[in-house]
């Protein structure tokens, strides 16, 4: 019995820890031995109301490699939305043409709403600052693959912890695995209280810092995010902190052997280019992992195995 069959994936909390484990196991099997054209005759609609080249291409690659077809649009300007069509009408119409909808939208909650009105399942590929669960699953997969476990790891989250949806969803998912968190951010971009409260309630340890040069030697995973200038009300504050949250190669000198650097990409300047050559840099492999994970999610929801 596949409990994920016909189920929508809107928020990481929609999947139980068991279901998450099944997705990660399946992704690993797909990586080791590609399953062939198991999506033959399936049509997947990719509705990207907001452009996101990386996520869209990753989904397209995942579907194409499994023999499925993708229809859809890459930005709202080329869809009927530009003529004033409501989200409901677009979703109901497109659901007639497809077996599954993958949707990206700048409005928070749009994917949940779509999943409630659509007769076919919906995968959220990012709804504003809210959720991006396939990113979270590929982050979990990357951590498990490189560390051999999700349990008992020391996870460093660096940069914009206030607005970054990827760190929030990853935090929620990792809270099931006895994780120790270290949050490194400027004061303005600290982890919101609600997430810290959530960890406290679950008895998960976390520590907050404003610099990580001294403590990086303890990390199993460093999850980098970008500190954006526009997040600061005072431009001087940005100037003061902008270089503190940049990872440089020399900082990796005394780090653990198993340390891996993750980043949801796109990267701007928060990881120096010379880090790319280090065996500890993992962000491009992380992006590749996204294809296997999305294949596992789509195959499970369409129940083709």
């Amino acid at each position, binding site marked *: 019995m596949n409990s994920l069959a016909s189920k929508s994936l809107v928020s990481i909390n929609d999947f139980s820890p068991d279901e998450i484990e099944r997705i990660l196991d399946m992704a690993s099997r797909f990586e080791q031995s590609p399953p062939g054209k198991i999506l033959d005759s399936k049509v997947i609609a990719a509705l990207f109301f907001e452009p996101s080249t990386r996520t869209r291409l990753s989904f397209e690659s995942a579907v194409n490699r499994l023999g499925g077809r993708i229809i859809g649009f890459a930005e709202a300007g080329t869809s009927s939305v530009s003529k004033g069509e409501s989200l409901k009408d677009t979703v109901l119409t497109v659901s007639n043409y497809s077996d599954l909808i993958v949707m990206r939208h*700048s409005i*928070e*909650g749009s994917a*949940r*709403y779509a999943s409630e009105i659509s007769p076919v399942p919906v995968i959220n590929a990012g709804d*504003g600052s809210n*959720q991006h669960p396939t990113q979270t699953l590929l982050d979990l997969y990357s951590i498990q693959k490189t560390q051999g476990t999700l349990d008992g790891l020391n996870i460093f989250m660096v940069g914009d912890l206030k607005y970054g949806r990827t760190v929030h969803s990853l935090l929620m998912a990792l809270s099931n695995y006895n994780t120790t968190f270290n949050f490194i951010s400027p004061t303005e971009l600290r982890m919101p209280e609600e997430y810290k409260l959530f960890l406290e309630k679950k008895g998960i340890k976390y520590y907050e810092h404003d610099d990580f040069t001294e403590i990086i030697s303890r990390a199993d995973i460093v999850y980098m995010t970008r500190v954006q200038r526009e997040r600061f009300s005072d431009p001087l504050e940005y100037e003061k902190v902008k270089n503190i949250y940049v990872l440089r190669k020399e900082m990796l000198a005394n780090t653990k052997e198993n340390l891996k650097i993750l980043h949801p990409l796109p990267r701007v300047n928060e990881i120096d280019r010379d880090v790319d050559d280090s065996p500890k840099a993992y962000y491009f492999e992380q992006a590749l992992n996204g294809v296997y994970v999305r294949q596992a999610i789509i195959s499970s929801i369409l129940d083709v195995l």
Partner: protein
Amino acid sequence: MEKAKQLSVSAIKNGTVIDHIPADSLFTVITILGLEHISNQITFGTNLESKKFGKKAIIKVSEVYFTEEEINKIALVAPAARLNIIRNYEVVEKHELTLPDKIEGIARCFNPTCITNHEPIKTRFSIISQKPLRLKCHYCEKITDEEHLTII
């Protein structure tokens, strides 16, 4: 003195009296209960003196008895309200309100980029904390607190 108080809003024979409503929430309570759409006799008084609130409001609705689910909706804006069921001019039952776990279509989501503020969708919240009041939007998953709470 007691007599003068009772006369401030006339008694009803059968129905429901909702007392101890904060005066500034009276019209919100009327809206939440949909009282403007019913044809029964309704009397209300506001800015009445109250030891608890300073100023309170009271509503008396003839021949109407609310379900627990209906009445608990007003707990958001009038948590200390008391419900008296009246039969033949006598109070036969008294109830306090309980805030429900989930509410629908009453409050507006504080997040301007939430889908409920862009498409005609009934809002849905789970109440994650009563004191201080914190509502989590079912759609955008953002928190609306008491300070930013708007009743639709």
